[in-house]
């Protein structure tokens, strides 16, 4: 009972803490964007002053900056991110709504693959510590982490799409086939990292006293690992997975570009390069909220995994 109210209070506090964090994020992002030289309408072709004035008026860019800032805060408060300056036929809300499901599908699949595969490989390596198996697994993991995805992706496309013709070379039709290569590329470095994390913490846990006790009790090795060792060993993995998930479901620029996937990731870069103020602000705020929420979820999972962590203020 005690624990439940502590938990609820903790949840509430975290949620309230979200507001100043977000406000900070919006403010910094808003003014940073405006500090960047150049504006959304600068291009090789120069606009006559009257046309530039019309454009600035349309997007309220002719108002004093502070007024623009408060206007924007007012909009965000009602969850309206405004029209995109770059993609004129769409609002930022529509762009996010179209890109998010795509990024979510690829990102969540990749994160599940990375988590399952990574922990399995990590545990295997930890159990076979200092054997050939351990070395080759960790060697492969090192390789997976250090080869950048813009190298892996084209190689995979060449092998599996262009030469073999089994999979599409890019493009997005929401089908499984168009997801395979992006998911592999996206999950590979995370899988490798998770494997290394799991192995490290697993080895540490396996050497701790309570495992020795469990083994001394005569528990079968399988039970020792799944019931006692795994949960604490996963803690560092879980805390890594929070931000990693946020990063992956909000889209990867490189993956989206190479596989031509219409996700959210390239809006960060495209938006910033085009000085599409509204689009950049929209995705930054969205990403910020996502990270805060996922970190919060990590906290909850922590509490469930580690009996030492309790959000009871009396302790």
């Amino acid at each position, binding site marked *: 009972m005690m624990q439940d109210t502590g938990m609820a209070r903790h949840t509430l506090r975290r949620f309230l803490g979200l507001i100043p964090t977000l406000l900070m994020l919006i403010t910094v992002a808003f003014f940073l964007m405006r500090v960047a*030289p150049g504006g959304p309408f600068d291009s090789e072709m120069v606009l006559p002053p009257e046309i530039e004035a*019309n454009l600035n008026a*349309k997007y309220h860019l002719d108002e004093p900056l502070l007024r623009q800032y408060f206007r924007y805060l007012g909009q965000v408060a009602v969850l309206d991110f405004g029209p995109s300056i770059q993609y004129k036929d769409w609002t930022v809300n529509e762009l996010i709504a179209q890109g998010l499901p795509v990024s979510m599908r690829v990102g969540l699949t990749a994160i599940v693959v990375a988590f399952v595969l990574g922990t399995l490989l990590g545990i295997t390596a930890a159990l076979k510590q200092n054997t*050939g198996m351990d070395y080759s697994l960790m060697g492969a993991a090192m390789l997976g982490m250090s080869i950048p995805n813009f190298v892996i992706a084209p190689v995979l496309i060449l092998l599996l799409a*262009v030469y073999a013709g089994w999979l*599409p070379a890019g493009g997005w039709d929401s089908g499984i086939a168009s997801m395979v290569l992006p998911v592999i590329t996206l999950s590979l470095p995370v899988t490798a990292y998770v494997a290394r994390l799991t192995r490290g913490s697993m080895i540490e846990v396996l050497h701790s006293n309570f495992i020795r006790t469990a083994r001394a009790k005569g528990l079968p090795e399988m039970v020792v690992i799944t019931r006692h060792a795994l949960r604490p060993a996963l803690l560092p993995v879980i805390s890594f997975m929070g931000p990693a998930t946020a990063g992956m479901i909000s889209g990867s620029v490189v993956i989206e570009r190479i596989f031509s996937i219409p996700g959210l990731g390239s809006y960060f870069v495209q938006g910033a390069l085009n000085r599409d103020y509204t689009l950049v602000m929209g995705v930054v705020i969205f990403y910020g909220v996502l990270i805060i929420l996922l970190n919060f979820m990590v906290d909850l999972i922590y509490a469930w995994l580690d009996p030492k962590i309790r959000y009871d203020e009396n302790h």
Partner: protein
Amino acid sequence: MNFFRQFLLLAVFALLFAACGNDNQEQQHSSRDGHEQPVELILTEDGRPARSVLAEQQELHRDNGEEPQTLDPHLAEGLPSAHILRDLFEGLTAESPEGRIVPGAAIRWNISRDGKTYTFYLRRDALWSNGDPVTAKDFVYGLRRSANPDTASNYAQVLLPIANAAEVLAGDLPPSQLGVIAMDEYTLQISMRDPTPYFLALLSHSSTYPVHRTNVEEHGSTFSRPGNLVSNGAYVLKDWVIRSRIELVKNENYWDAQNVIVEKVYYYPFEDQSTALKQFRAGKLQWTSEVPNNQFKWLQQHYPDELMISPWLGSYYFGFNLQREPFIENPELRLALALALDRDLLTEKVTQFGELPSYTLVPPGIRGYVSPSQEWAEWTQAERNSEARRLYAAAGYSEENPLRLEIRYDTGGNNKKMALAASSLWKQVLGVQATLLSEEFKVFLQNREQKVLTQVFRAGWISDYADAYSFLNLFRTGHGRNDYGYSNNLYDSLLDEIAAERIPSRRRRLMFEAERMLLTETPFIPVYTYVTKRMVNPRLKGWQSNVMDHHYSKDMFFLKAASEQATVVADIEAATVEQTEEEVLTSDIVAETATPVIGSETLITEEGVTPDEPIQEREAVVPEQAPTAADGKEDKTLPQGLLE
């Protein structure tokens, strides 16, 4: 024991990979064969491809390079939007496959003697995609909307030659005061501020397209969405999945629909050129917007029939900031640097795609205009180098006292390589100490414009319309893109004269004079003329290379693959037996076009019937038809500069 097992495992993997490798090599050949050669093109009497040679599937998959910013023709800017809008809408004028201005929604027009009044006679058979007739009122509405400050069009400067356009854009006059009047349902009159010989070309630009009034008023800012958009071009918008694909289908209400062969057009925004290339190789695309910069040799070797390279109406320059030392009042030094750049080397080794070395401001390819030639352009590079050294020394620089300068460029494209190559050439020939500075595009633009930090900078220009004035105007005092800080009263007054001149030969002479004046002062270094470079499926015909790089899907069609040749022959035999009206001529034409068709340039043989001839005839008829009673002799229906 354990190690032995590991070793075995590794060996098995190695074998597997090796096997894959072999597989790949074989696969590569089969995927190359995916782009089959077409059958020979056979044209019918009226210059259209014979049905017997057309492929069954007429679906075009075009890579568009990027997501279009908008499909609202009056807000559009940038190439991706323009490509799609050319398929969706039709302006008063249009372009033929080789880039000539031809009648579009207007079937003919006449231009008053002073060049300030254009009267357009619209097609009576033109319909909107919803079946409504396209009338002069639609054009009036479209042009007023385009100029309306509330629309906030980026490209409304295309309208500036129209009377009162500047005042309307500035909000000083209401849009109704724009110099555009519907005389009757099918007659449109446009009054001009200046005679603008390239105005007919501007009328094929999206800023001047008509829009359907009730459509726009009903849907507001979402009128350009699929399901909403009513258009008057050869295609209608079927579907738009943002950053994924845009699907167009043939507009059955288009006046020339019976001659539109491609039924569906898909546009894909492949931002990564290697991705587009891979899609092309996998047979998913028949047209790419570009090819990767560094793969010329490989492409030329493996895809000689698919790689299409042709000059573009734009040039790459290095600019000098004339408001900052050492380039103020120092034309000899600027010329020395210009001489020392070995353009043949730069185009061969750096750009590699057959870009043309350039010595002038205006790129070649504009009908009726030839740039003045620079004397030293005819010299060998060794001669240029020795003259450069002489000028360099005369300007007071030497080995002990070398010129130090900074080359500023924006990241992307070949800019870094070009800057590196230029700096090493200058060092090698003159001993110049150059530092390189790379900036993000918009930062670079701003610095270039402010003319405070720059010395030597990357510059360039691609024109929206085929007229030398577009390039010359860049050096007008106070022009927004005059990042050189070039200011010359004589030059400015020449530009004013060009703007007011409507007799093509005189105007041409003035432009020639202006360009020569500019070149003698060397405020910039011309380096090379851009090329467009793309992959095109060899079975896709009907398009031609043109300097504007405008290609309408309605002109294109797919030929059958050569492997289907048997069916073609059978078809023709069947036709001759039946002696059908349509096929009587094909046997003659088969004989005529018996020479193999290579590439798109030779698609339409010179003596053969071109798809444009009916149009040419129409133009020739115009002067007699035009109601030009009073000043008929001077009245030119078409300005020569554009249509010669």
